[in-house]
C-alpha cells in the first residue's frame, strides 16, 4: 500500500512565474553579447584564420538560434499558423546550416586536413551521435521528450556551446602557457578551464530550456535527457575537431587514418555516454530537481550542485588522465577501456542512479494521477487501464497486441492514445503541485482529446 505525503507546492506564487522569461531573456542577451565579443576579440587578438571563422560563424549561430526558437514555438500555435512558422523556421535553419558548413570548411583544424576529411569525420560521427540521442531520449520511459527539443539541445551543444568557449579557452590557454611551469600544475589549470567554461556553455542551454519550455521540462528525468543531449552535441563537434586535427598531424607519417580512427572510437564509441553526456546530465538533473522544489534557496542550491558536479567530473578527467598512462602494447587496448571506466564510470553510475530514482518517482506519481483520473469516471482513463498505463512494458504489450490485430495503423493509434493519457496524468501531477502556468482549460482539452482518440481508435 502506498501513502502520499503532502509536498509543498513548487511554485506557490503564480504571479511571479513570468519572471523566469525575463531571466531567460537576460541569459540569452548575455550569451549573445559573449558570442559577439568572443568573435571580435578572437579576430583581433588570436590567430586570424580560426578567428575569422568564428566571426563568420556568428551569423550562422544567429540564424540557427532564431530558426530553432520559431520551430519550438510553432508547435504551440494553432494548425493554420503552424505550417507557416515551420516553413519559416526550416528556411532559417537551412541557411544557418549552409553557412555553418562554409565556416567548417575553413575552421582552424579542418583547413589543414581539408574540407573532404572534415566532412568524412562529421559523417562518421553522425550515426553514433544519433544512436546516443535515441538512447538518451528513450531513458524517459513514461513521457518521451519531443524530438524538436532534444535536437535543439544537441544543436546548441554542437554549435552554440562550442562557439561560446573559443575566446575564453583561447585566452586562458595562452595566459597559462606563457606563465605556468609545464606539468601537473599547468594540466590542473587547463582542466579547470575546460571544466568551468565548457560546462557553463553547455549548461546555459539546459537552463534556457528549463526557463522557457517548462511544459516539456517535467522533472529530474527530463533534465538528465536534455543535459545528456547537449553533451552529445558538444561531443560530436569536439570529435570532428580532434579527428581532423590528428589526421592532419599524423597523415604525413602515414598514420592519419589510424589516429583519427582511435579518436573516433575513444569519443564516439567508448566515451559516447561517459564524457560530455554524463557531465551535462548532472546539470540537467539539478535543474530537473529544482523544477519541483518549493523553496527558492533549495532551487538555487540544487542547480548550483548540478553545475559543481559537472565541472568537477570534467575537471577530474582532464586533470588526472595522465595518472593512467597507456602502454604502447596490446595491453594498452585494455588500459584505454579501464581508464574510462575507472575515471568516468563512477560519475556515469551516479547519473544512472539519479535517473533510476527519478523514473521510479515519476512512475509512482503518474500512477497516482491515473488512479485519480479514472476515479472521476469521465472516461478518459478507465480503471482497468491504470496498471497498463503505469507500466512501460504493459503499454508495449498492449501496442503489440493491437499490432497483431490491426497492423501498424492500430499500433500507432494505441500509441497516440497512451501518450495522450500520460500527458493528461502529467498535467494533473503538475497542476496538483502548482507547477504550471496553463489554465485549467488545458487539462479539459487534454481530457477531450483522450476521449476523441479513444473513440477513433475503437472505430
Amino acid at each position: 500500500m502506498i501513502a502520499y505525503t503532502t509536498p509543498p507546492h513548487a511554485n506557490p506564487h503564480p504571479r511571479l512565474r513570468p519572471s523566469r522569461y525575463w531571466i531567460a531573456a537576460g541569459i540569452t542577451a548575455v550569451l549573445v553579447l559573449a558570442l559577439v565579443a568572443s568573435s571580435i576579440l578572437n579576430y583581433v587578438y588570436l590567430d586570424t584564420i580560426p578567428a575569422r571563422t568564428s566571426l563568420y560563424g556568428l551569423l550562422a549561430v544567429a540564424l540557427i538560434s532564431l530558426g530553432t526558437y520559431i520551430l519550438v514555438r510553432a508547435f504551440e500555435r494553432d494548425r493554420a499558423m503552424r505550417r507557416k512558422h515551420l516553413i519559416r523556421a526550416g528556411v532559417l535553419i537551412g541557411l544557418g546550416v549552409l553557412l555553418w558548413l562554409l565556416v567548417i570548411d575553413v575552421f582552424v583544424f579542418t583547413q589543414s586536413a581539408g574540407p573532404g576529411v572534415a566532412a568524412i569525420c562529421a559523417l562518421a560521427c553522425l550515426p553514433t551521435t544519433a544512436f546516443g540521442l535515441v538512447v538518451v531520449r528513450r531513458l524517459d520511459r513514461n513521457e518521451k521528450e519531443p524530438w524538436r527539443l532534444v535536437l535543439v539541445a544537441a544543436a546548441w551543444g554542437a554549435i552554440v556551446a562550442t562557439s561560446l568557449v573559443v575566446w575564453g579557452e583561447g585566452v586562458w590557454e595562452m595566459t597559462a602557457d606563457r606563465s605556468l611551469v609545464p606539468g601537473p600544475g599547468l594540466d590542473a589549470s587547463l582542466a579547470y578551464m575546460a571544466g568551468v567554461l565548457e560546462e557553463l556553455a553547455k549548461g546555459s542551454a539546459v537552463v534556457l530550456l528549463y526557463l522557457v519550455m517548462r511544459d516539456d521540462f517535467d522533472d529530474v528525468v527530463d533534465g538528465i535527457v536534455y543535459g545528456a543531449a547537449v553533451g552529445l552535441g558538444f561531443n560530436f563537434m569536439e570529435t570532428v575537431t580532434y579527428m581532423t586535427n590528428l589526421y592532419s598531424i599524423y597523415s604525413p607519417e602515414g598514420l592519419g587514418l589510424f589516429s583519427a580512427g582511435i579518436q573516433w572510437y575513444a569519443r564516439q564509441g567508448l566515451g559516447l555516454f561517459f564524457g560530455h553526456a554524463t557531465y551535462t546530465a548532472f546539470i540537467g538533473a539539478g535543474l530537473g530537481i529544482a523544477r519541483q522544489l518549493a523553496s527558492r534557496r533549495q532551487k538555487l542550491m540544487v542547480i548550483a550542485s548540478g553545475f559543481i558536479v559537472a565541472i568537477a567530473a570534467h575537471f577530474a578527467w582532464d586533470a588526472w588522465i595522465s595518472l593512467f598512462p597507456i602502454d604502447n602494447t596490446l595491453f594498452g587496448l585494455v588500459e584505454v577501456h579501464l581508464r574510462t571506466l575507472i575515471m568516468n564510470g563512477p560519475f556515469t553510475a551516479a547519473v544512472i542512479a539519479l535517473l533510476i530514482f527519478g523514473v521510479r518517482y515519476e512512475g509512482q506519481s503518474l500512477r497516482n494521477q491515473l488512479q485519480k483520473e479514472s476515479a472521476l469516471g469521465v472516461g478518459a482513463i478507465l480503471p482497468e487501464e491504470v496498471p497498463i498505463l503505469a507500466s512501460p512494458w504493459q503499454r508495449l504489450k498492449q501496442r503489440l497486441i493491437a499490432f497483431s490485430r490491426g497492423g501498424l495503423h492500430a499500433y500507432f493509434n494505441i500509441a497516440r492514445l497512451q501518450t495522450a493519457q500520460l500527458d493528461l496524468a502529467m498535467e494533473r501531477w503538475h497542476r496538483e503541485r502548482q507547477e504550471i502556468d496553463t489554465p485549467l482549460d488545458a487539462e479539459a482539452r487534454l481530457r477531450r482529446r483522450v476521449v476523441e482518440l479513444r473513440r477513433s481508435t475503437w472505430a
Partner: protein
Amino acid sequence: MSAITYDQLRTLYRTMLVFATVGVLILIAGLIEFVYFEPPGQASGVAAHVAGVFAYDSSTGETSGSDRSEFPRTQQFAAVVDWSSLPDNITVDAKWFDAFGDIVGKAGPGTPSELAGHRIVPVVVPPGFHHSLPGRYEFVVERIKGGFAVEVIGRRFVVVQRT
C-alpha cells in the same frame, strides 16, 4: 507501507547535495595539486638567456642560420642557451615540449656550469617517425627545487608547419 512523492524528491535533493560535496572535494584536490606544483612566491628574478632557435644538423651537432620561430617539419632544429647568464647556485634544466605536451628534447638537470657543454638543446624526432610532428613547440628553461620545476626562467615558442 511507503511514503512517496515529497520524501522521494527530498532524497533526490539530498543526493545531489552529496554529489556536490564530492565535487567540491575534487575541485579542492585540484587546487591543492595546482598550488603544490605552482607554489606561490617562487619568482627568483633570474632569467635565462635563450640565444635563439636555429636549424640543426644532427650529424655535426651544430646549428646554423638565423633565429627563427617557424620550421618546416622536415627541418631539425635546436635551441641555444647561454648557461653562463645564470648564477651557479641554482639547479636548472631545459626541455622541449611538442604540441601534445610530450617531452621531445632535454638537457639537465644540473647547475649552469655543469650544463655548459649542453649549450645546444635539439628536438629529437620521436622513435618510429621520420620527422617532427607538426604543431606548436615550447622550449623552457626551468629552475629546479626539491626535485621538480618551480619556475620557468626562459621560454620560447616555435611552430612546426605541416608542409
